[in-house]
């Protein structure tokens, strides 16, 4: 399988503090890749470097290359990069004053889409892809904030999908959800990889084991090990990985 995203010696700083160091990693196309590791290991920083979100924080910088289908994203306009590489965050963040419909259409409108038919189609398709359509089709005018936590997260996924990104980054997308809502998101992730490349950061190792083909383990800003998920959880090569996943740290 081809790498959709390739990072080459990526390092990132918050002021003088280096959060990740020389990360070289491939994310395969039409596959789910998981990044695991303890709090503060740099996994969220890494995925924020993949769509240039890291630089939105003051006094930060990035070194190294991030190639999207072979193209260096740091040579492209940041807005273009973020349209091609969408992101979903830990806490669902629908625009509270907008309706469900407007939440999904927001990205397209920002990109200049005004045609109502095209917007309707995109909203319908995105909500269907996010497995939310059946639950909201009769209440599209209601506020996005009126939905449950799990529905809000799927609304955010629909919003990210509406601009037809190539890659979807998910930073702890189920951290605030109950097991039923989590299962729905995981089912959704499984379906999404047909059309998208998915990168998920998760604290939940069982979630990584369930949804990802490939898992990377990070520790103290370093990439310790990456490999097929089954192998990483059954026979990790590195002692640090073994210690972390079996809970023998500390």
């Amino acid at each position: 399988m081809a790498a959709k995203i390739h990072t080459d010696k990526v390092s990132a700083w918050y002021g003088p503090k280096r959060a990740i160091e020389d990360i070289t990693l491939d994310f395969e196309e039409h596959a789910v890749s998981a990044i695991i590791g303890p709090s503060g290991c740099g996994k969220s920083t890494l995925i924020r470097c993949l769509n240039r979100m890291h630089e939105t924080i003051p006094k930060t910088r990035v070194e190294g290359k991030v190639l999207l289908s072979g193209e260096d994203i740091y040579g492209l306009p940041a807005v273009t990069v973020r349209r091609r590489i969408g992101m979903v965050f830990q806490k669902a963040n629908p625009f509270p004053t907008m309706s469900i419909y407007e939440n999904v259409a927001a990205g397209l409108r920002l990109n200049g889409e005004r045609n109502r038919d095209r917007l309707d189609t995109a909203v319908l398709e995105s909500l269907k892809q996010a497995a939310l359509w059946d639950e909201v089709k009769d209440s599209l005018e209601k506020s996005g904030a009126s939905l449950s936590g799990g529905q809000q997260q799927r609304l955010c996924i629909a919003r990210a999908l509406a601009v037809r990104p190539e890659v979807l980054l998910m930073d702890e997308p189920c951290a605030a959800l109950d097991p039923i809502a989590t299962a729905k998101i995981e089912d959704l992730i499984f379906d999404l990889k047909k059309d998208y490349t998915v990168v998920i950061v998760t604290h939940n190792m069982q979630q990584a084991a369930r949804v990802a083909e490939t898992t990377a383990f990070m520790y103290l800003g370093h990439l310790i090990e990456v490999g097929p998920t089954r192998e990483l959880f059954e026979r990790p090569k590195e002692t640090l990985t073994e210690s972390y996943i079996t809970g023998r740290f500390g």
Partner: protein
Amino acid sequence: MPQAAERKALAKGLEKLNENMVTLAELSELAIRKAIDSLTRLDGEVAREVFTIDQEVYGLQLEIEHNCVDLIALHAPVARDLRTITTSLKITTDLDRIGRYAKDLGELTLQFNPSARGAEPELKRIREMADRTIQMVDTAIDAFVKHDAESVRNIMQVDDDVDRMHDENFNELVRRMTEGSLKIETGARYILVNRYLERIADHAVNIGMRVVYMVTGDWLPRERAADRAKRIPK
């Protein structure tokens, strides 16, 4: 990553599992040692002790199986914890089978007519084969207890020796029965003893190979014990 309390519970469960596995392994080995002892001395009392041990082996095997399922269900173990639990789950079957063969040997002891003592040459060969088989079981069990993959890497070669002995014994028994120097009934029973020992050695191979997986995560290329057993004596 499991939380501290969860890790503690898992560690406790693994400790208990290990204790039970060591006991089960010791009981299985004791069963086969006693079975061979009962056979060579035609001692019915010792044979009956084997039946009791086999019952204990069976009971403990069930307990271990339940322990393993609980650990998997409650703690979702990974890496070496997972390999230890799944290996234990598999090895219990081999140890139980060894116990069963020991019981079968004990039953044969009771069926042997004391006047069958005319079969000393067979007994000597069987004794040699039994020593080699018990040594294999001992090596495999020791490797499991000590988490030592290296000591069992060549266990299949030792098994080839046992297979060769099995074939030679079989041919010799058939020859003697054919020429009439050994009673058919006695010879037939020795063929069963010969077969049981060869199968016990196969189970020792299974244990050895699973220990390699448990310790290193490597799957050694393997031949199914049943297929090994099907080899036609040359």
